[in-house]
């Protein structure tokens, strides 16, 4: 039972990293991305590959993951964010599809559907993180670090400018803000941080394959953000705690797996729709504006 709770907490840590980093885009910059699972996957594959093929350690893998995530986002963001409007949704959808195709079909590198196995356990300051309890500490530490980085970013002149861009791009330009550059920077940072979650995941499960990084996963991460609330940094953290608890709770009901999987999807959908009616700003969002 304790190991079970530890596993849940590790996953909360990983999804906190994913959701908080995605919220930089969705909540603060007002840019909707469907590629966060791709970024997550890039982080996972990048650190798994450098560990397996080059024998790079956990920290080195984290850095490689972040750089790879940043590069992928910049590559897509530089052309698409120059155009005003919601083109990034389409561009990020494209990135998601392309990256998943690469994971599945570049078999020499990724081993295709079979995935990569035998990813080494992280070694942190000489200590091998080989059970869920130690991994909770590592996941929580990395989640806290990501949160701190995002907190610094959003509570600064940069964060203020980001919100100004979201609120009124034209006004921001008129006031001297380089809107395109700001969007590219935030997309790059969001993806670099998201990739850290992938690295953590790969070393925890020690096996990865493309099915963890699908479009559905992107939508799931976006759901965490929406459910928790985009207005505060802590919103997505709450979203991660709650939505990850749903499948765990279902396991305690005596229902077969074949029913539980679709049931989970139905529950996610119901929760999202419910929230749009009752609390469109999310759990930690401000309550609905007083009716005028």
């Amino acid at each position, binding site marked *: 039972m304790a190991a079970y709770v530890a596993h849940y907490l590790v996953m909360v840590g990983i999804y906190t990293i994913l959701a908080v980093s995605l919220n930089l885009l969705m909540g603060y910059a007002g840019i909707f991305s469907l590629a966060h699972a791709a970024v997550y996957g890039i982080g996972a594959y990048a650190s798994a590959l450098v560990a397996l093929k080059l024998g790079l350690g956990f920290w080195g893998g984290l850095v490689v993951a972040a750089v790879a995530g940043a590069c992928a986002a910049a590559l897509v963001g530089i052309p698409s964010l120059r155009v005003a409007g919601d083109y990034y949704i389409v561009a990020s959808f494209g990135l998601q599809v392309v990256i998943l195709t690469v994971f599945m079909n570049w078999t020499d590198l990724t081993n295709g559907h079979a995935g990569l196995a035998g990813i080494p356990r992280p070694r942190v300051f000489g200590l091998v993180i080989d059970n869920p309890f130690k991994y909770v500490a590592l996941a929580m530490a990395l989640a806290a670090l990501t949160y701190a980085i995002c907190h*610094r970013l959003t509570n*600064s*002149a*940069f964060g203020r*400018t980001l*919100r100004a861009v979201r*609120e*009124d791009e034209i006004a921001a330009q*008129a006031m001297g803000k*380089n809107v395109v550059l700001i969007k590219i920077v935030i997309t790059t940072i969001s993806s670099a941080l998201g990739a850290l979650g992938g690295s953590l995941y790969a070393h925890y499960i020690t096996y990865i394959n493309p099915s963890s990084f699908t479009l559905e996963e992107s939508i799931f991460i976006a759901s965490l953000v929406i459910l928790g609330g985009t207005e505060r940094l802590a919103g997505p953290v709450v979203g991660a705690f709650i939505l990850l608890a749903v499948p765990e709770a279902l396991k305690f009901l005596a229902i077969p797996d074949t029913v539980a999987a679709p049931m989970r999807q139905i529950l996610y959908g119901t929760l999202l729709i419910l929230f749009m009616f009752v609390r469109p700003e999310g759990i930690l969002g401000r309550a609905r504006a007083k009716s005028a």
Partner: protein
Amino acid sequence: MAAPIMTIGKVSKAFGGIQAVEECSFEVPPGLITGLIGPNGAGKTTVFNLITGFLRADGGSIRYKGEELLGLAPHQVEARGIVRTFQHLRLWGKMTVLENVLLGCRTPLGENVLTLYLRPGRVRAEEAAARARAFEVLDFFGLTARAHELAEDLAYPEQKLLSMARIFATDAEILLLDEPTSGLDTDSLQKIVPMVRRLVEHGKTVLLIEHNMELISQLSDEVVFLHQGRVMARGRAEQITRDPALTEIYFGA
């Protein structure tokens, strides 16, 4: 008259078949208020959009201190020291009054993600200086008591003041005001009109769009009269408002 600080030379802009601005030329003298006046559709806001880089001109030149402005992006124009308001204000409504003004203040270290993490001490000092400056500006515009309210919660005249405050905070030399008096009642006009005058007393050069013929002589020193995208007349405010031919164009014959 002193040498112009900005020279608009034969600038043209067409939208499809409509010639919005045609070979428009005038100068903006430093330290004065120049009023752009003309009937609806005369091309006044288009001229603003051309100066500030929001529209690309078909031809002509706009020189500021010897440098060509045409072809620059809006944020580059602002960096040169020219900043504008909008007729529909475009305040950041869900942000506070203070934040709206802070966004005008210079915070290059806090806006740069590298220095943000690597130079925390200097970023903190810069932010403190920006806040001090923002409160000075809020005080100047009589908005200090509203500092922590959301911009969208202000009364309309205060929102107008805030739109001016936020560009005043930028240290730009030329302020372009798009209809600073529109939609205001007589009481509020008594606050805004002297405020525009005070901007000039603080060393700014003002170019403004004004719709109201009666107000133009109170508001501006020099007047440029636009009609169908062309400059019809230029001169002292009193001259223009007394010209019967122009008044006829303005009020429609």
